[in-house]
């Protein structure tokens, strides 16, 4: 697993150097929220009810972009071959990419969630621990499948369309769990969110393991 750590640090370093993802996430996140809010034009009392759905939809959209980029950067100069020529297990490459995506998606959430709170008049402070727990579980679940399928999408034709096409149907149960849990947490704290969290944990476990095992088949030539 030494390879995974090196890959994680390398990806974070590249991201820090270019700050491409951060900038585009911030701008895209704001734009999406503005569009949602303006299109729906909710009353201030009704707005918080929209927050869970808006939050997760915005997360998915910005997340898709970020994950896609993570593998596109391996295509430049054929760096993926560099990784595969190393004495590391492909599963370690998956682990490294997964962790890098989790971190970057976490940053995405740190940008998008406060904005949602701001635009939709939701009080986030009171429920922060529960909210962070739900956000993290959803993050890992999204990243587990997104990392696997971004590797697929960047190697096929029509790659911009392919990733959302493959990923969105598979992510629906995750979104159901995440939105349900978020709604419960915003309403009444962590305990009420038990069902949603159970779904999230199940999703995370199943697909991190699945990604771990299946990634080798995707990158093998």
């Amino acid at each position, binding site marked *: 697993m030494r390879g995974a750590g090196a890959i994680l640090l390398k990806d974070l370093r590249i991201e820090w150097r270019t700050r491409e993802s951060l900038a585009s996430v911030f701008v895209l996140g704001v734009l999406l929220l503005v569009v949602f809010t303006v299109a729906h034009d909710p009353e201030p009392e009704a707005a918080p009810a929209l927050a869970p759905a808006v939050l997760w939809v915005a997360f998915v959209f910005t997340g898709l972009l970020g994950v896609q980029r993570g593998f596109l950067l391996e295509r430049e100069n054929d760096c993926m071959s560099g990784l595969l020529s190393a004495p590391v297990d492909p599963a370690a490459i998956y682990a490294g990419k997964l962790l890098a995506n989790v971190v970057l998606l976490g940053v995405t959430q740190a940008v998008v969630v406060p904005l949602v709170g701001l635009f939709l008049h939701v009080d986030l402070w009171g429920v922060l621990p529960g909210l962070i727990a739900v956000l993290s579980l959803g993050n890992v679940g999204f990243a587990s*499948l997104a990392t*696997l*399928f971004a590797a*697929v999408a960047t*190697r*096929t*034709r*029509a790659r911009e369309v*392919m990733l959302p*096409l*493959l990923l*969105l*149907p*598979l992510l*629906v*149960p*995750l979104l*159901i*769990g995440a939105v*349900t849990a978020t709604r419960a947490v915003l309403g009444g704290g962590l305990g009420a969110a038990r*069902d*949603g969290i*159970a*779904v999230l944990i*199940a*999703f995370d476990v*199943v*697909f991190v393991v*699945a990604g771990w095992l*299946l990634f080798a*088949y*995707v990158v*093998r*030539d």
Partner: protein
Amino acid sequence: MLAALWLVFVAVPTEREMGIVQRIFYFHVASAWVAFLGFFLVAGASAVYLWSGSAGADRLAQAGGEIGVLFCTLVLVTGPLWARPIWGVWWTWDPRLTMTVILWAIYASYLMLRAFGGNDDAVRRYAAVLGIVGVLDIPIIIVSVRLLRGIHPAVITRNEGGSGLVDPWMRAGLGVSALALILFAAWLIALRVRTARLTDEVAALRRQVAEAA
């Protein structure tokens, strides 16, 4: 195959509860079972393909995917046809319907990947990975759509209409139509696999001819 289907139509007239429309129920439920079998077939054949690289397994996975989507589409079409006269609505987001739509979308994207992913051998591997992941998602989908019940209070449970299976004739009718559809689907799959194999052989022959020239 066709004989079995004909039998269903003949046997069914002896069971009328909600009128003629109720007969769709047999096809509807049986189609759902066939669709599920199709998806499990995709996953199984995909796993075999990843393990052994057998082209036959890959063709079987493709056929399973196509038939699965076909029957899933039938479920989604026959459902509203039955629901409208009985319940008065074309659609509702109840758990079972939602799950069917999600499954349809997953395997439709499977077919999209195979169709538009490019002509490489690699696409077969990617599709196999997707086929396996899809099946792994099924239990999670089942659990998560139950959460929707809490959100949307107005729910019409599917089985209210058809749970009146007390009449053994009806059960037999369901069993026969299920068997008939499974046989029909198996026949379609065998046909599809054969077509795929012949297509591959023709392509190989074409290449040989081109090279000899």
